[in-house]
């Protein structure tokens, strides 16, 4: 499997980051960075990461099933992650979640028919003092109101 030159450079650096014989340490970062580039953790990627980290595909699968950000199916181009944990709950996070589900007609970990947007109700994302908060892919949105969410979802729908 080949990746972009930036990702290959990142992998080279990663494998040099750990003590000798500890290539396995690079497994989780490698899976996440590769998933960002190819969209999901494919069987081919599992085998590739196993090869590069000196592990077996089974060991990779055992690890990937543990981490909630790693997923085997592709998500939407914009993955909208709405926090409903305690600080967001108190400031309207659940309303945002219900609103997004109703507007897009999809639920938890589902993707719109055009593949543009996926939704996920997530646990605390570390934006508690600027709640309610959400992330689109890795970008944070703070103090989100239903109106702001509407505008955001509309703009994400138009993305090509």
């Amino acid at each position, binding site marked *: 499997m080949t990746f972009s030159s930036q990702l290959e450079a990142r992998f080279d650096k990663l494998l040099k980051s750990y003590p000798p014989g500890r290539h396995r340490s690079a497994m989780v*970062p490698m899976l996440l960075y590769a998933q960002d580039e190819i969209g999901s953790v494919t069987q081919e990627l599992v085998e590739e990461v196993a090869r590069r980290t000196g592990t077996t595909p089974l060991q990779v699968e055992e690890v990937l099933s543990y981490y909630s950000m790693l997923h085997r199916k592709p998500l939407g181009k914009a993955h909208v992650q709405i926090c409903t944990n305690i600080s967001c*709950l108190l*400031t309207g996070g659940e309303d945002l979640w219900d609103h997004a589900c109703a507007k897009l007609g999809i639920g938890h970990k589902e993707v719109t028919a055009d593949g543009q947007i996926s939704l996920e109700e997530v646990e*605390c994302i570390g934006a508690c*003092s600027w709640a309610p908060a959400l992330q689109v892919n890795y970008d944070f949105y703070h103090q989100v109101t239903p109106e702001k969410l509407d505008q955001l979802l509309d703009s994400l729908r138009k993305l090509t």
Partner: protein
Amino acid sequence: MPYNEPSPLEVRVLSRRFGLPNSASIETYLATDGYVAFRKALEMKPEQIIEEMKASNLRGRGGAGFPTGMKWSFVPRSSPKPKYIVVNADESEPGTCKDRLLMEYDPHQLIEGMLIAGLAVDAHAGYIYVRGEYRYLIDILDRAIAEAYHCGYLGKNLLGTNFSFDAYTHTGAGAYECGEESALLESLEGKRGIPRIRPPFPAVVGAFQCPTVLNNVETYCAVPAIMRDGGAAFAALGVPKAGGTKLTCLTGHVSKPGVYELPLGFPVDKMINEVGGGIRGGKKMKAFIPGGSSCPVLTAAECEGLTMDYDAMAKKKTMLGSGGVVIMDEDTCMVKVALRIMRFYAHESCGWCIPCREGTAWLRKILFRFHDGMGRREDINLIGDLSKNMLGRTFCPLGDAAALPTISIVEKFRDEFEAHLDGKPCPYEHASQLVTA
């Protein structure tokens, strides 16, 4: 000031560079006493560094509050194995969002803290374990690390001495459990984040089975100030047995939520009303979580005369925790709060210890049923009993973290559970929601 306006009541030591132009750059850092503490520490013996840390009364800022100087002193410096510095930047405790700012606005302060810890325990490499959701911080940290290499603050023979140190970032991929020290170390080794049984503690057998200093971001970020101004000066900012300042995240039903750096021992009442601008909408406070969702909940009455420090919180049978303060007003449904907290722990339980795996899952089901108006009177005691049976019966504190707030809510807000009995709808849900439901 980023994200929220600063408060005049703050004592800004760790956050002193927040809001400066290009505060994350090494130029800004060097122009504001950056790496001065490291230069000073290079002249000191490791024992002197640890003594200074002990004198500072700095206690771990991740939640457990263990004295940092003592933790460092447990590392067997004479061990032939390499030693490691590991930064817990897996900030995931609900209510907590302070390490994010420390890394975003002042990454060099963290790197300098790691360097000084490296000098103290003879470590030559450090890893910053950053939660996967904080990708932008990895980019900021990687840039800062590259700058530090370029300017000779990382790499070989630093500042003409024989001390060498390398620093790396390592991303997690979504797992609260990896904020627990031993699970973090497993994750760093490319495994599922499952806790290790202790002893041995990470100080002796940590990263890659070698002696390791593992502290929270905020703990390392306090180190440069301690070395620069002296342990005694840092200690004097706080209270006896808890030195310095604490980044406190005000969240929930408060008028001015935000991250504020307050001295240890700051009065809770003043924090809510003067720093936080009081309860939103002029309402009354019902409940208070001092430091993240793992802490037992306090009632408004219990907060009277209370101060934000480890021992004062321990006297109230709760914890200062991570600094994630959650403030709940009089219209908050405490059954719903208990349910949401339990949903979180059930989701995050790694499944290794049965009391936690089964306990959180069943408690989530019972609380869900209860909040839906289908609870039975005997369930109230069952919730308390199940929680108590998790306490102290797991390898890591996640089981306790799920049980402690639940026990406190059942004990202190029993009437709210009773108000949900006999098929009655939740008395706190908005009328509009009931119509559409």
